[in-house]
């Protein structure tokens, strides 16, 4: 089973402070820690589990700067066989469609049965690249996959809907699935393992290698234009109770009792 996994290097912003950069269209990256996008990590694990079950190979592909090699080496350390990085200054400012186009160019000539990627990137949150890629490759797809079973050339997927509901679909391979977190338990890649993976080659492709023109990528090739980033206006502010734990908890109980909540 030949599997391609699309991964992305993203900053971890859940706990960290996010500051908008001076240009107003990006964020300050200096103090942020970068790692593989969480959902992509689950997609990678799913691919590795399928490889363990069916044999074959796993290829990790990313669109990103040279630093994205950290993520690719981690994928290789965990068991991916090949890694491809698409890097070019001219890719900067690409919207979701263009990103999918870049991946399409790199992947279309590969031999694959399955493409897996995370359902959403935690930085831009587009939730778009995977499905667009499937369309460009002319293969069927499904999203928010929580369970994936393969029998022959057919995949049976459980897709997460809203409110705890799931739908079961049958999809013919080759297909692309966007993977939801929680589908499996990702393994660990040790530092030694990642160092050993440095011996494996990472294929780097640029704009010319992909056979695209400058006007087809980056800001000029994008149909969606990012005008500006801004901190969301605060609609409501909670009344913050101040003081030591003993004090705030007493105050809270007082408030809840007086409001008839408890």
């Amino acid at each position, binding site marked *: 089973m030949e599997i391609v996994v699309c991964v992305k290097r993203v900053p971890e912003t859940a*706990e*960290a402070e996010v500051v908008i950069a001076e240009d107003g269209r990006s964020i300050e990256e200096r*103090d942020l*820690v970068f790692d593989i996008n969480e959902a992509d990590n689950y997609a990678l694990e799913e691919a590795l589990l399928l490889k363990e079950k069916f044999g074959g190979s796993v290829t990790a592909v990313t669109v990103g700067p040279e630093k994205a090699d950290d993520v690719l080496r981690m994928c290789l350390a965990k068991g991916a066989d090949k890694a491809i990085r698409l890097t070019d200054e001219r890719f900067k400012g690409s919207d979701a469609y263009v990103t999918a186009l870049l991946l399409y160019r790199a992947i279309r000539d590969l031999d694959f049965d399955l493409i897996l990627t995370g359902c959403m990137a935690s930085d831009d949150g587009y939730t778009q690249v995977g499905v667009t890629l499937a369309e460009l490759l002319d293969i069927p797809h499904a999203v928010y996959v929580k369970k994936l079973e393969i029998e022959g050339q057919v995949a049976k997927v459980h897709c997460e809907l809203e409110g705890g509901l799931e739908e079961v679909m049958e999809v013919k391979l080759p297909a692309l699935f966007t993977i939801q977190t929680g589908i499996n338990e990702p*393994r*660990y890649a*040790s*530092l*030694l*393992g990642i160092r050993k993976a440095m011996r494996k080659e990472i294929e780097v492709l640029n704009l010319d290698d992909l056979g695209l023109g400058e006007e087809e990528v980056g800001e000029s090739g994008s149909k969606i234009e990012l005008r500006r980033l801004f901190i969301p206006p605060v609609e409501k502010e909670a009344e913050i109770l101040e003081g030591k734990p003993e004090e705030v908890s007493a105050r809270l109980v007082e408030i809840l009792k007086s409001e008839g909540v408890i």
Partner: protein
Amino acid sequence: MQIRGELISKCNLLECIQCGKCTGGCPVSLKSALNIRRLIYEVLIRESLDIRGRNELWDCTTCSTCSIRCPKGVEPAEVIVGMRSALVEGGRIQPTIRDVLESTFKYGNPWGGLRSKRAEWAQGLNIKNIAAGDKAEVLYFVGCTPAYDPRVQEVAKALVRAFEKAGVDFGILGEEESCCGNEIRRMGEEGLFEFLMEENSKNFERYGVKRIVTTSPHCYNTFKNEYQGGSWEVQHYTQFIADLIELGKLSFSREVKRIVTYHDPCFLGKQNGVYEEPRRILTSIPGVELVEMSRIKERSLCCEGGGGRMWVEGTNPQERLAELRVREAVSTGAEVIATACPFCLLTLEDAVKTAGYEGKIQVMDIMELLAEAL
């Protein structure tokens, strides 16, 4: 199992006579399927050993009682670490361990705390920052748990008060301090341990560090015994403070009238032989009455905080050794269990609650008692 050959030579397994002194002294063998004597037997006899699914391997607290008791110079504790290493390299470890290792690599601490918040505990205390250019004679290596855990931050603050009272010229590394790696190594992530060792050693070099004092016996242990090629001297704070008291640099103005029993942390006591200094500190605090439990010094009962156990439930969470220890302390008539290790502090304090002794006995770090007397 590929590492079999390595384990046999690294841990002198061929010397093993299967006497069982190791398992006989292993604190967790009371409640776990972990049997280190038998594991060594299996490694020696079997061509290949499947350790996957052997969750009892993670019950080990690396207290090293086994290695200390062994009459033949075998290192049973290292056998466990070696097996864990194989599991770590294979990637198949418990999610909590995985998260701790990833956090330590990315953030420099196992708690997922942002690096930018590592020195937040010191805000307003005007402590010299050696990494920011300040010069100081002594590096106070705070450690991850005292830096990020609110309960243990009190210990760091108490130490700082004592340093200042005694006129010690000290500084911290602030945000540039990274995990010492003691637990990391014992969880089997040798590569990450070496990475941390390099980072910290580079920092010590770069900032001309000559003397280090640590809050945690775990940091002390690895700096003293496992870090290579350093030209610095390291002490646990109990040694440093005991010296200060002896030199008359610390004086007490208040009485702390408490009956105190002291719990010897494994990494300070049985592994590094520091038994007297903590006791000297306690007895020098006016008002403190020191009563001893029977399992003290080399025989101290491990609290199950070391060896990664802060992040692993263990196969038998119902029977906690820390609860046994608390009961033992209560039976001495003590009001306070004093200790000198962040993990012992947290585990014993937790055990006081779960064993139902809240309000009857208190767990405090030696420095907290000392600070009360300043």
